[in-house]
């Protein structure tokens, strides 16, 4: 292999920096002061960021067809021969290998960049919390896992990162583990993710069984060599299994239920893991394996449909939430739906583009929400906020920018990425577009409902908290401002061509999603005209502005109306407010059934294993030992005692002689002597004769 430029050759160092500090934190963190913890942890992420920037520039410097660099550190699982599905023998190889191409470049920049800002923010936000070092240790461990995920050069190593981020997510959601709801939410996230991971793992197995490789760079050629036709059911199966994994990690229907509960974690965690990075891993994975998806129109169709429906479904729930973080959580699910919609219609690059802009503005929204919560002494209910815009102006303005970005107001970042997706969706299928379009309106509505309820109108803050309202420290505000700037300009790197731009970003990414073999999906239906694209944009702008005005009317102008509307739609409102009773449905269908199974197994354990097995064995042992005791007492001891008894019986008459009276002994001696002498004389007398 030719020598790579420095940063590309040392790409493996990027995840190592956070890993080292994570290890330091988790082993020695207790002994370190908060100051050192902050410097070490943020510093390591910053070094990773520098390396990522270096890697990015060295990748860009290459010609666009050669922008894939791999670095294999060592052979992780040595070549194990096995039979593929078609009977050929392949070798299962999993390297500890890293791959840097435009897609990973974008991901590591997002992860380390946004991650670094959130680290800085956390030093302010978590300053007064216990377990400071633990928080940063987990956070750095997460950074390591996420970077492994996006830098892995094969599916199995990606899965390592995939599970690592899941674990860190669990640890950080349950950071306030003494709170029952937090530890429950952590478990829920972990368990729901396991469902998706099972699918992903099966997908990896099927990939290696079918294609004989799990290395990303080999999957495309293997597909070409295998001569798979478009719509091959085996390929569709792999794609669907991968998508099951993606729905778990990226909170799509039907596995989205964990994400709203994940808001129990500290707010920087929500920003980093549950908005900007981890939840986008599913989108990344689908894009990374796009060669497989492009062979399966059915799977693509399902991805697009699930994405679109999730976007709408989650947005509808976001409209009625009163917890500021829950609104953002549903918004995240909804935006992830957009990304999957983009992937599903074949616009993988647009999906990644939206992933990036979303990381900026949703990360910002969460951080700003954290700043608001910080200001009102931990209150999260928007009904107990209001009129905060003057008191915490920087938070207000940055959050407003983020809201404008996510709503899709021209020329903020969200506008460019979202309209790119909607445009692609329209080319593919008008119904998908309509769903996305309607969701955009709802997004604008609920985001500005949040803004208006929190920052405008009359103050409903508790009297106690009212006195303590204060702007957050600089360490929290600086990341807000930087992210706000990115939320504005972040989209400009792919300025639409109709506005005289050149879609740099999309072109940068497109080699990754180029289908490397003859099998190609049919081209998208009729390329829309430039005019049509413009119309679509105007249309969505119109709806977005309508949504904002509607929110203003309901939550600033006529604050009595929302309640009346809620009453008017009584049943439907309750249905949406209770999140469509999906949690209850899952509880009834799966959770309680699993519990029932556990109880049944427990009863089996108690009655059969313990009852028949253990207690039975105990009873049997007792019985045998009782028999043994009986034998020992009556037969063994009995024979001994019988012997003793016989001896006693014979000795009894003899011992009567020993009466203790010295005179009786004397008498016996005398009698004996008389007898002895008598006999003696008798014999002597006869002998003489």
């Amino acid at each position, binding site marked *: 292999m030719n020598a790579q430029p420095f940063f590309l050759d040392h790409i493996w160092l990027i995840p190592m920096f956070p890993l080292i500090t994570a290890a330091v934190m988790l082993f020695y963190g207790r002994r370190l002061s908060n100051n050192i913890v902050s410097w070490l942890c943020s510093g390591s992420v910053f070094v990773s960021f520098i390396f990522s920037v270096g890697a990015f520039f060295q990748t860009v410097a290459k010609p666009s067809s050669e922008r894939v660099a791999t670095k294999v550190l060592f052979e992780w699982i040595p070549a194990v021969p096995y039979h593929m599905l078609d009977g050929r023998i392949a070798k299962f190889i999993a390297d500890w290998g890293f791959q840097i191409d435009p897609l990973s470049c974008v991901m590591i920049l997002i992860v380390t960049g946004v991650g670094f800002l959130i680290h800085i923010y956390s030093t302010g936000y978590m300053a007064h919390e216990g377990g400071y070092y633990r928080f940063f240790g987990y956070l750095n461990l997460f950074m390591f896992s996420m970077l492994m995920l996006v830098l892995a050069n094969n599916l199995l190593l990606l899965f390592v990162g995939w599970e690592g981020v899941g674990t860190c997510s669990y640890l950080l959601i349950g950071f306030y583990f003494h709170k029952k709801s937090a530890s429950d939410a952590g478990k829920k996230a972990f368990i729901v993710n396991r469902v998706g991971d099972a699918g992903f793992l099966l997908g990896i197995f099927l990939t290696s069984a079918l294609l004989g490789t799990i290395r990303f760079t080999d999957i495309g050629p293997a597909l070409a060599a295998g001569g798979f036709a478009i719509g091959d059911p085996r390929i569709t199966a792999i794609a669907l299994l991968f998508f099951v994994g993606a729905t778990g990690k990226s909170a799509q229907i039907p596995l989205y239920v964990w994400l709203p509960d994940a808001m129990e974690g500290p707010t920087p965690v929500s920003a980093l893991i549950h908005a900007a990075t981890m939840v986008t891993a599913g989108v990344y994975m689908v894009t990374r394996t796009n060669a497989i998806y492009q062979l399966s129109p059915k799977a693509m169709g399902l991805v697009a449909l699930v994405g679109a429906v999730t976007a709408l479904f989650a947005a509808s729930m976001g409209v009625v939430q009163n917890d500021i973080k829950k609104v953002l959580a549903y918004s995240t699910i909804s935006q992830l739906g957009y990304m999957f919609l983009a992937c599903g219609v074949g616009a993988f690059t647009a999906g990644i583009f939206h992933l990036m802009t979303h990381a900026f503005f949703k990360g910002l929204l969460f951080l700003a929400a954290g700043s608001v919560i910080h200001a009102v002494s931990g209150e999260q209910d928007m009904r107990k906020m209001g009129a905060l815009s003057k008191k915490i102006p920087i938070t207000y303005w940055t959050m407003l920018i983020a809201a404008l970005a996510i709503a899709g107001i021209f020329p903020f970042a969200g506008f460019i990425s979202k309209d790119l997706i909607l445009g692609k969706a329209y080319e593919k299928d008008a119904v998908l577009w309509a769903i996305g379009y309607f969701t955009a309106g709802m997004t604008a509505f609920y985001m500005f409902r949040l803004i208006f309820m929190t920052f405008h109108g009359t103050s409903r803050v508790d009297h106690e908290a009212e006195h303590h309202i204060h702007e957050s420290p600089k360490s929290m505000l600086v990341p807000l401002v930087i992210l706000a700037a990115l939320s504005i300009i972040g989209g400009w790197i792919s300025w639409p061509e109709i506005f005289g731009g050149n879609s740099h970003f999309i072109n940068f990414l497109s080699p990754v999603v180029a289908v490397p073999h003859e099998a190609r999906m049919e081209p998208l239906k009729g390329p829309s005209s430039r005019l049509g694209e413009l119309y679509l944009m105007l249309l969505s702008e119109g709806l977005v502005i309508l949504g904002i005005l509607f929110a203003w009317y309901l939550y600033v102008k006529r604050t009595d109306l929302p309640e009346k509307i809620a009453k008017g739609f009584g049943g439907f409102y309750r249905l949406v407010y209770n999140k469509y009773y999906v949690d209850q449905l899952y509880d009834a269908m799966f959770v309680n059934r699993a519990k029932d199974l556990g109880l049944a197994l427990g009863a089996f354990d108690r009655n059969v294993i313990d009852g028949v097995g253990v207690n039975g064995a105990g009873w049997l042992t007792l019985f045998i030992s009782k028999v043994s005791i009986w034998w020992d007492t009556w037969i063994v001891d009995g024979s001994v005692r019988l012997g003793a008894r016989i001896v006693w019986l014979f000795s009894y008459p003899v*011992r009567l002689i*020993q*009466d*203790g*009276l*010295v*005179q009786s002994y*004397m*008498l016996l001696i*005398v009698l004996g002597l008389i007898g002895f002498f008598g006999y003696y004389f008798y014999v002597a007398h006869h002998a003489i004769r």
Partner: protein
Amino acid sequence: MVPVDQYLWLSLALFTIGVIGVLTRRNVIIILMSIELILNAVNINLVAFSHMFGSVDGQVFAIFVITDAAAEAAVGLGIILAFFRNRETLLADEMDMLKW
């Protein structure tokens, strides 16, 4: 000169009285005294035969027996004294603890 058989008859009589005393009397002191009689019966025999054979060996043995009797009386009386302190009795038929 007194013939030796007369000494022997005397000795036999003393011996018999001694044995009967030992066997029949209840008081241990009298039993002890009866034993002295037996010992002295032996002494008479020894002296008689010594005289008959014209040898002093028997008389020497008689002196030994007297010494022995004195020692025995001392030990016997000591035992009786100790026993009396414990059991407040001198009757031989009540001294029956040393049995099965």
